[in-house]
């Protein structure tokens, strides 16, 4: 398959070029980003036949194939092969590009986006039209099956123009999405959003054939919703849906009339495995081509990789259990995993004492085998206001012993709060079901034992954790936050003290479960003030500097009150056998990667 391989490499360059120019032009008001489709002269399936050309992956449990219903990355990975939106992050990289949009025009008030659509065909042979997008956007906003309506309606999200009735529900056909002609689609926003194009890449905004499901007013639907969510999937993506056997496997095959570069492989097969050991065994059998390695079976010392200009580690890993060498990609993700407190239920001295005993370096190196980057600030370096250098400068002033356990300082603080070993402060740490967090919890418990804090560990499924958080019942808990686009804005709204009021959740407050507004401290006041500064400076360009300063003030306030202890930023890793040629993925995560440029060489 050497021939196809060459084509795909050339293409990769092209994509890189267009990626660099994209955002610049987007800011100026119009963006044009196109690339020539890679048309191969042979049908790879004819040449290879059988399963040889199938890319084998491992996935975890999927919930739904309906783009507006799925909320997990496992379904997302499959949906991303089948459906396409207006924009996308190629290979999960940091910069957004046009996908089904050929051209974008943004009005001067930054509220109207006019998209010219590509000529594309659905898997069932029908043409893509602007009406399809209107229909898809309406479903996202109006359908009862939509789990992500807030992404299109919410003020901190796309904030599309819409009307609501007395109950607060969206009035049908009231959203600001319109088909100007067959290939021109226009949306109108309520307020300017500098990240609108990034947001539109989210898979819930994907095009689906108009009227395929009847879950919004005005459509009867060709299929039942349950069929659409599990058995029928019609998109414009590079792969057609074949089958999904829940908790067993899923399969897609190459769509030959794809509008972009038609895949070199015959299809993609996902084996669905939840258990780590099962996962690793499957990979070591060479049953999977591209996979991840569970931490238990991972050995940091086997990596031989170099850092590229995007901060990715690219190289080799091995030899592994079966003797093979693997290709390795490690990419720092825009995500932060943290421990956080419900501020009023835990005295500030206790919170600070825990900050003193926490040793992130030990945690990341020992417990997580180096598969993360120590998080000192909530915002990852890649999205830090003012850039990574600013962050390095900022963390030099970390108040609680960076990368060291200081039990004496912690003991003094706990004593000043009136607790000691004989009369300890009882605190429950609730973690969700993750081996790493449990181990981290046990480590923290050991370090606090004897200091006057009796840390109880509790493990709970994600759903329960969230429920308890919204009820303000979590004293001390672990969670993570993933940025859907690389900007500081996306994480910070949750720290506005008034927005952390759990008694208003889930309706009127959407912050982290901190109840920080109840804390009568300078830091809390500073954070509130900083957020008001952010809101007073919404202009995408001119307001940036003021917003950045405010965000840094908020980071400082988080430190001072120790309401949240960021732990690490994830480094996502992908391993593949050497017969696979796959481009390294980027900082938004490998589940966004589409496999039409992958080649297999066996």
């Amino acid at each position, binding site marked *: 398959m050497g021939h196809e391989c060459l084509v795909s490499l050339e293409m990769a360059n092209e994509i890189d070029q267009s990626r660099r120019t994209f955002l610049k032009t987007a800011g100026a008001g119009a963006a044009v980003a196109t690339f020539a489709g890679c048309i191969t002269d042979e049908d790879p399936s004819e040449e290879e036949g059988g399963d040889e050309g199938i890319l084998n992956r491992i996935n975890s449990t999927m*919930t739904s194939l309906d783009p507006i219903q799925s909320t997990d990355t496992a379904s997302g990975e499959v949906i991303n092969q089948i459906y396409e939106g207006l924009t996308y992050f190629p290979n999960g990289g940091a910069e957004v590009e046009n996908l089904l949009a050929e051209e974008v025009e943004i009005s001067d008030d930054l509220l109207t986006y006019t998209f010219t659509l590509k000529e594309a065909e659905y898997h069932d042979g029908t043409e893509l039209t602007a009406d399809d997008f209107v229909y898809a956007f309406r479903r996202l906003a109006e359908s009862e099956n939509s789990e992500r*309506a807030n992404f299109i309606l919410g003020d901190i999200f796309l904030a599309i123009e819409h009307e609501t009735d007395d109950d607060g529900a969206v009035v049908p056909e009231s959203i600001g999405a319109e088909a100007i002609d067959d290939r021109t689609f226009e949306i109108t926003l309520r307020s300017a959003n500098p990240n609108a194009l990034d947001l539109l890449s989210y898979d819930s905004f994907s095009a689906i054939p108009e009227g395929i499901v009847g879950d919004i007013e005005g459509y009867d639907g060709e299929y039942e919703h349950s069929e659409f969510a599990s058995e029928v999937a019609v998109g414009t993506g590079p792969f057609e849906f074949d089958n999904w056997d829940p*908790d067993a496997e899923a399969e897609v095959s190459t769509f030959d009339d794809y509008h972009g570069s038609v895949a070199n492989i015959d299809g993609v097969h996902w084996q*669905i495995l939840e*258990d780590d050991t099962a996962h690793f065994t499957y990979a070591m059998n060479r049953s999977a081509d591209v996979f991840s390695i569970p931490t238990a079976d991972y050995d940091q010392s086997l990596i031989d990789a170099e850092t590229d200009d995007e901060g990715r580690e690219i190289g080799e890993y091995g030899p592994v259990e079966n003797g093979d060498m693997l290709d390795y990609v490690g990419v720092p993700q825009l995500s932060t995993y943290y421990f956080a407190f419900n501020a009023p239920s835990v005295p500030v001295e206790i919170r600070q004492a825990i900050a003193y005993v926490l040793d992130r370096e030990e945690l990341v190196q020992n417990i997580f085998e180096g598969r993360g980057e120590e998080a000192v600030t909530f915002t990852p370096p890649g999205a830090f206001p003012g850039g990574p250098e600013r962050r390095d400068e900022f963390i030099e002033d970390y108040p609680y012993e960076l990368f060291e356990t200081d039990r004496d300082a912690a003991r003094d603080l706990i004593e000043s709060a009136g607790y000691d070993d004989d009369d300890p402060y009882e605190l429950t740490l609730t973690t969700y079901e993750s081996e790493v967090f449990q181990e981290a919890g046990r480590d923290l418990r050991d370090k606090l034992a004897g200091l006057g804090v009796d840390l109880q560990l509790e493990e709970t499924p994600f*759903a329960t954790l*969230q429920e308890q958080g919204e009820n303000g019942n979590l004293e001390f808990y672990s969670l993570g936050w993933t940025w859907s686009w690389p900007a500081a804005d996306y994480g910070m709204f949750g720290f506005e003290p008034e927005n952390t009021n759990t008694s208003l959740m889930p309706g009127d407050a959407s912050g982290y479960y901190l109840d920080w507004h109840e804390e009568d401290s300078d830091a809390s006041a500073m954070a509130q003030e900083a957020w008001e500064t952010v809101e007073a400076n919404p202009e995408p360009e001119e307001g940036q500097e003021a917003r950045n300063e405010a965000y840094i003030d908020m980071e400082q306030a988080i430190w001072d009150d120790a309401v949240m202890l960021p732990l690490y930023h994830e480094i996502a890793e992908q391993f593949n056998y050497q017969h696979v040629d796959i481009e390294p993925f980027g900082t938004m995560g490998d589940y966004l990667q589409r496999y039409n440029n992958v080649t297999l060489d066996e």
Partner: protein
Amino acid sequence: MSRWRYFFRRLLLSVPVVLFGLTITFVIVRMGPIDPVAAIVGPEGGGASRGRIEERLGLNEPLWQQYIDFMVNMLTFNLGQSWVIQPGRSVESLLMTYAPRTLWLGFWSVLIAICIGIPLGFYAGLNPNTKSDYLASFGGIVWRAMPNFWLAIIILAVLRQSERFFFGLSWQSLGVSNNLIGQPPLDFIAFTDWITVGIISIPVGVYFSFSTLIESIKQVMPAAIVLGSAAMGNEMRIGRTAVLETINSNYVETAKAKGLRDRVIVWKHVFRNALVPLVPIITNEAFILIGGSVIVEVIFGINGLGYLFFQAAVQGDLPLVGSLMFIFIVLIVSINILQDFLYTVLDPRVGYE
């Protein structure tokens, strides 16, 4: 009391049993702290989505109303849709997908247990107090004492490195090559053609793949051995005792006195009679399989009913947990009735009490 009246009474008695079981399930799942809405929405969902989902699922209704709805739906076999695991998918279709895997696993675990446990038990019973009897008995007891979760892990570890343990003989490539983990392929048989006669469809075209069948059996074998381990030990012990008792009974003595050959005695008299007490033991295994399959399925990656139940329970998928429990209850209750009934038919000495 006549047989039929007894049977009727037994049926009548099962009604409160089913109702009570269902109520327990409702109380546990719906009044517990697990929130299905949070499970659906995920970390980035806003309040608006939550309210809407609550309304869709009917969670905004008063609890007693939910209870009545739940009971009525279950009892009319209106099993509803999954909320969390695969939103909107009907429970029936989920059952169609997940149940065959568990049934296939259960079938083999019962079969293996019977094929190994009973012969070993009979052998031990025919040669009482010999070295091989002790070995078999002791082995059976230890085998039974092994926790499934541990046995599963150990077997997996050994098979994965079978080349190291069995002088280069690799389990994975033995016969047909397969994975240690994952679903057994169940598409070795399929009906390709149907003809409809009136309202009945009759399959005429049958697809059958022998190699897939072998692969499927090989795939399910380690898990089935683990799941059947406790049953195997039980059957061995009961089998041994039953043979011992029959051998010492009068009619065998008589047969011996009549000068029948040992082989004939053993085959015609001992085994047939020794099998009777084993019947309830084997039917009882249904309970064990239903409960025990959770761990075996989780570890071996056979995502069947046990795995589905575990996920649904933890995530508060009420219709799914309720339906699964309901089906389990009905299954167990009917097996019980059937077993009691068979017992009264087989052995008239048993009273209808």
